[in-house]
């Protein structure tokens, strides 16, 4: 198990390096110039010289390979350069906002799992019943409804029932957990609905598949209680594909909160993403992409390790 874990962890390094290289060059293929946008932001004329001077100051006139060299050297030290717009450290800009997005993603996942497990299990155990049809209707809805639209519905519902919105200006989790929860539960719900639908449907089909396996029949032939057959023999096997879906969806969330954060006016990395794209802030953008990619890789790693913990066949693979 340990050697498997270490092997998997070491394998993430080349993946991350490849991402870093790819991000750097792909972003520089895209046309557009931050300096022009920045200098003309407040209107008025800007001279060619001013632009050149600004570019020189920001190091944008260096040959591309030099820029690449500086970027790659900085990476291992956690130095992602400075934002071309705010001229703050990119890492600092991201660090200031990632907590909120991360919290939102975790909250959505918790919500999704809490909803998906009972729904998926019930749906599978009572296959073909009214309950099953209702659950399947709900979950197909979750996949069909876009989360931002659901977000807007939630806002309108809050206005119509409570008559007010959660306070603007995010309160930290540790300052005032209740207010924080009240603020985040709504966006988490609008994202989590889809998330839980995907998970519940996956869980349903994998439970159904597992329950038709020979070893389930063996367990029943042993006279084991039906609930133990399902929980001990069924669930653990059915979890394998479900864990993959949860992991992939979580990683997807990190990058996919863009719209939801805008709807609920949350200052997370989703919003930062939008801003940096609009402003053509290459340094910030590549930092963000790299962060999300790292998140993706870490989640995948965790899923793999969880897989190994659940399935001895992977653990012992020689």
């Amino acid at each position: 198990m340990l050697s498997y874990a270490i092997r998997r962890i070491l394998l993430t390094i080349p993946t991350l390096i490849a991402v870093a290289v790819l991000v750097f060059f792909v972003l520089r293929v895209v046309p557009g110039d931050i300096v022009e946008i920045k200098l003309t932001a407040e209107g008025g004329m800007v001279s060619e010289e001013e632009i050149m001077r600004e570019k020189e100051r920001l190091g944008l006139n260096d040959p591309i390979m030099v820029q690449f060299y500086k970027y790659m050297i900085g990476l291992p030290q956690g130095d992602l350069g400075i934002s071309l717009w705010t001229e703050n450290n990119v890492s600092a800009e991201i660090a200031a906002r990632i907590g909120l997005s991360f919290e939102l993603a975790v909250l959505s996942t918790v919500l999704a799992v809490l909803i998906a497990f009972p729904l998926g299990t019930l749906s599978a155990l009572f296959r073909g019943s009214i309950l099953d049809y209702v659950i399947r209707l709900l979950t197909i809805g979750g996949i069909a409804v876009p989360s931002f639209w659901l977000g807007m519905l939630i806002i309108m519902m809050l206005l119509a029932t409570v008559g007010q919105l959660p306070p603007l200006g995010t309160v930290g989790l540790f300052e005032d957990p209740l207010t924080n929860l009240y603020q985040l539960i709504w966006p988490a719900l609008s994202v989590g609905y889809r998330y839980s639908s995907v998970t519940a449907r996956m869980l349903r089909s994998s439970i159904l598949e597992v329950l038709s396996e020979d070893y389930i029949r063996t367990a029943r032939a042993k006279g084991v209680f039906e609930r133990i057959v399902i929980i001990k023999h069924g669930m653990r096997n059915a979890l394998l594909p479900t864990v993959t879906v949860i992991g992939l969806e979580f990683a997807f969330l990190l990058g996919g909160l863009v719209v939801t954060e805008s709807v609920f006016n949350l200052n997370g990395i989703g919003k930062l993403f939008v801003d940096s794209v609009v402003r053509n802030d290459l340094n910030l953008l590549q930092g963000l992409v790299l962060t999300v990619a790292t998140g993706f890789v870490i989640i995948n790693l965790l899923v793999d390790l969880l897989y190994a913990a659940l399935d001895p066949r992977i653990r012992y693979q020689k």
Partner: protein
Amino acid sequence: MSNIDDKDVLLDVKNLNVEFKLKNGTVRAVDNISFQVGKGEFLAIVGESGCGKSVTALSLMRLLPRIADISADHIKFDGVDISKVPESEMRKLRGRRISMIFQEPMTSLNPVLTIGDQLTEPLLTHLEMSEKEANARAIELLGMVGIPEPEKRLTQYPHQFSGGMRQRVMIAIGLACEPDLIIADEPTTALDVTIQAQILELLKDISSRLGVAVIMITHNLGVVAAYADRVNVMYAARIVEQGDANQIFEKPSHPYTIGLLRSVPRMDKPRGGRLATIDGLPPNLMSPPVGCRFKPRCPLAGDACDNVPVLETQHGKEDHLAACFFTDKASKDGSTIYLAETSTHSSAEIDKDNPLLVVDGLEQYFSVSFRSGWLSNTSGTVKAVDGVSFEVYPGQTVGLVGESGCGKTSVGRAILHLNQATGGKMQFNDVDLNSNSVALVRQDMQVIFQDPFSSLNPRMTIGQILEEPLKVHNIVTDSQEREEKISDLLLKVGLYPYMRERYPHELSGGQRQRVGIARALSMEPKLIICDEPVSALDVSVQAQIINLLEDLQRELGIAYLFIAHDLAVVKHISHKVIVMYLGKIMEFGEGDDLYSNPRHPYTRALMDAAPIPDPQIERNREKIVLKGELPSPLNPPKGCVFSSRCNFVTDACRAEMPQLQECGNEHQAACIKLDELENA
């Protein structure tokens, strides 16, 4: 209805029916069957696939899916009618007093739980043992079923066990609570013949030692003959013959039983003529024939058969029942009711000067790598085929037999150049075979695969499947002629021209295998490599296909390389037989000679392990049961590859692999102790 003393009856099933309600109709999978099992008795339920034998077993345990509707006058187990008890009571019986062993050892154990966990489960559930007691009992059980180092094995997972070992674990689980009845559903069908012998001996030994009754469900008549006290023969959801095993084998009275017995090739008889075959296919249970269900296939069928026959006593013996109106005729003329022409195998002189295929020192090595440490890979070589030489003459059948993993399929694939051989020479029709020249002889060298379900493209009609090679090789360019050729081919393999419009899924397994043969024939080949062509088929269909292959050989002079694991089938069809083990030829000779006088200890053990469908012979046979399992091909034993399992092994055997040496007329064996063993 039978002669079991009332107080000795363990299980008494009266008028059991099982129906499956499907969207397009109701299937009665078990139709009004009654039988009894005595305490400590070994009952076999035998029949072809789809006859309802497994459904019977599962319905006794109430393990069928919810759509199944089970009804019975009674199912008395030890005096209690278990057809009426609630599910909670039924659960207490399962695994405690009735346990079950399933067909597929590879999938019947939960992959994510340890062996110990799965083995102690019934002990903890039914006997309320403490964890510690249960573990101790589990170790005892594993020892009892012959698993070495049981303490260590307890914490391992199913994937660390071989198929045979897993089936031993299943038996241990079945025995855990010392049940009164074990139901074994085809427990050895997925295993090799030597492992089958080990498992069945174990089951028989344990059941007689502990007085456990066994219901064994099987399609293998040899297994029935070797182990069963009583037999139920099932056909199309009904019991057609029932009674004492010796009696039924000696005087079979139902035409179906007779046909079944006569369509199995026999290892103990000299190579004879065609096999008797039962024409046609078992009926579709959605709309079974009126009256006797065997009527459409029965050579004795008459008007009376429109009524449903009931089980009646035969030969004045209370313990022998058959359901047929013509049992007198059937048992009197048993040997002649199935027309088997006496015409035999192609006896045309074999042209010894011009071999069709020469294989000389064939080697097929596969390099494999596997992880051995943190980041290190170790590579090894699997010698799937290691120095195999033989010849096939025109019009001759050479059988290649051995257990799974012996390299027999690799030989076939190397000859066809589906895998590139790593060493040795091959000649076909005087052409040296290599990757360039093989295209020249492709047409003359065809193949029939094992699985008639997956080797035909499901999106092509039978006509298109047969047309394709004709087009590719430009054999028949005119489309009209092609149509005619396809009709000819279909007729030749016993199908009808109208079937060309059908898709593979619309045909039965036997019919699909016929299409496979037609496809091979369309090239008018000189050699057909048959890779387990009948192992997926039921006995009666298997006989039809074997007869077809033999007829075609006689008619067209085709040579076959017949690869199979079934010794009796290989013996029946082959002129010459090669026995392989771990990539090497162990013995080689004329079929009759080799089977009547096997010289190599492995050949002997293989033959001993294959049960013969005759209780008299089977129970008086002295058997060498092979120990252990096939060693890892990555790390074969030193010296003779068979040394690790041989009963006669000495140090000299471990020194080097013996060469094949003459031991009779065209009979060779690779063993250094041939003379010694001959006299022993």
